[in-house]
């Protein structure tokens, strides 16, 4: 697309007649290229910076620090295989297992509604989330739930292990494990 204009010189001297070519080059494609590269670099640069999320573990050694949790304040999530999510409210003995999933519409709604119920009953935000990942749940599942806790500003949550009876119960109701 370089524009070259032929200018025949109107020189009267016929011996030195040569056609002068313009040295102007159309720079539009070069500008295009420059901006494409800029956008590429901006996008890749923005995607590479990793973020860090805090995770605090409970100190099991300090046994004297007991923290009573009211029964109606507890909400337990059980992260099972194949991205299945189970939950129950209150104590384990009379737990009613329900299924949910990791999408924002279901898990976030669960937490928000639970908080409302706790607020209505007790008058303050005493909700406690217990996260129990199973052996075949993956890291993403766990981080998703912990992230939901920070999205919904859950003050108290902890990661725990499943009990025997819970394991049995989940084995009955969950889908068989598909090896990944």
């Amino acid at each position, binding site marked *: 697309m370089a524009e070259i204009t032929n200018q025949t010189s109107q020189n009267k001297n016929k011996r030195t007649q040569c056609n002068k070519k313009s040295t102007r080059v159309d*720079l539009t494609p070069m500008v295009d290229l420059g901006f494409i590269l800029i956008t590429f670099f901006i996008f*890749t640069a923005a995607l590479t910076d*990793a973020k860090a999320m*805090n995770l605090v573990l409970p*100190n*099991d050694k300090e046994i004297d620090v007991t923290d009573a949790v009211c029964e109606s304040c507890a909400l337990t999530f059980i992260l099972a295989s194949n991205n299945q999510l189970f939950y129950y409210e209150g104590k384990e003995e009379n737990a009613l297992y329900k299924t949910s999933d990791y999408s924002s519409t279901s898990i976030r709604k669960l937490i928000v509604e639970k908080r409302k119920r706790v607020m209505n009953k007790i008058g303050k935000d005493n909700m406690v989330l217990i996260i129990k990942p199973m052996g075949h749940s993956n890291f993403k599942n766990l981080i998703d739930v912990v992230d939901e806790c920070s*999205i919904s500003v859950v003050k108290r949550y902890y990661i725990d292990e499943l009990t025997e009876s819970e394991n049995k119960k989940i084995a009955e109701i969950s889908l068989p494990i598909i090896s990944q």
Partner: protein
Amino acid sequence: MPKVKLPRKSTIVDMTAMCDVAFLLLSFFILATKQKPQEVLSVTPPNSISAKAAPDKSILITMTKDGRAFLTLGDDTKKSAILENINLTKGLNLTPAELAKWNKDEFIGLPLNQIKGSLTLKTPIPPSKLPGIPIQDSATNEMVDWLASVTNVYAGGDQAKLQEMLLVKGDNQALYPVFKNIKLAFKKNQLFKFRIVTNGEAVPVGSELYLNPPVKK
């Protein structure tokens, strides 16, 4: 009334200036962005809404998809001290020359008893063949020993700073038991706070955090 004659002007604009600006910006962005360190261990971390940037100097535990664990000692000032410490406490019998060679490794991904052997090899084992630090069961969890050495070396220093440096980076598909054993290793060394490397994500509109963001100190 005579017609007003408008002189015809060429629509061609001189692009030189614009070209200059484009490349000036380009060179600025290239120089301003940090070079991404080459990733030998391919890991796709999960997303989170956390906005805190992960520190460059860190003690990073990487969990791969297939359940192997690696340790990267990013703090060059303390790296050799940590390696020397584990050499002493676990009786690896490494010579100073071997320690110096080990110090050049980017990350650690071998059981302790295989380290001396690997340092005598002429060609290093490729990362895909490394077995990782054994953490599969709690009896032979070598991450405990590693973190013990780390705490030993940082013992006199700023503990809050150490907490900021402890990072765990896991693949989306890594299974939970691997993370559980890493968690146990932290706990056994009285380290109760660490951070997880994630990809940033925007806070969802309408959520509690979105409506009432925490007041910045």
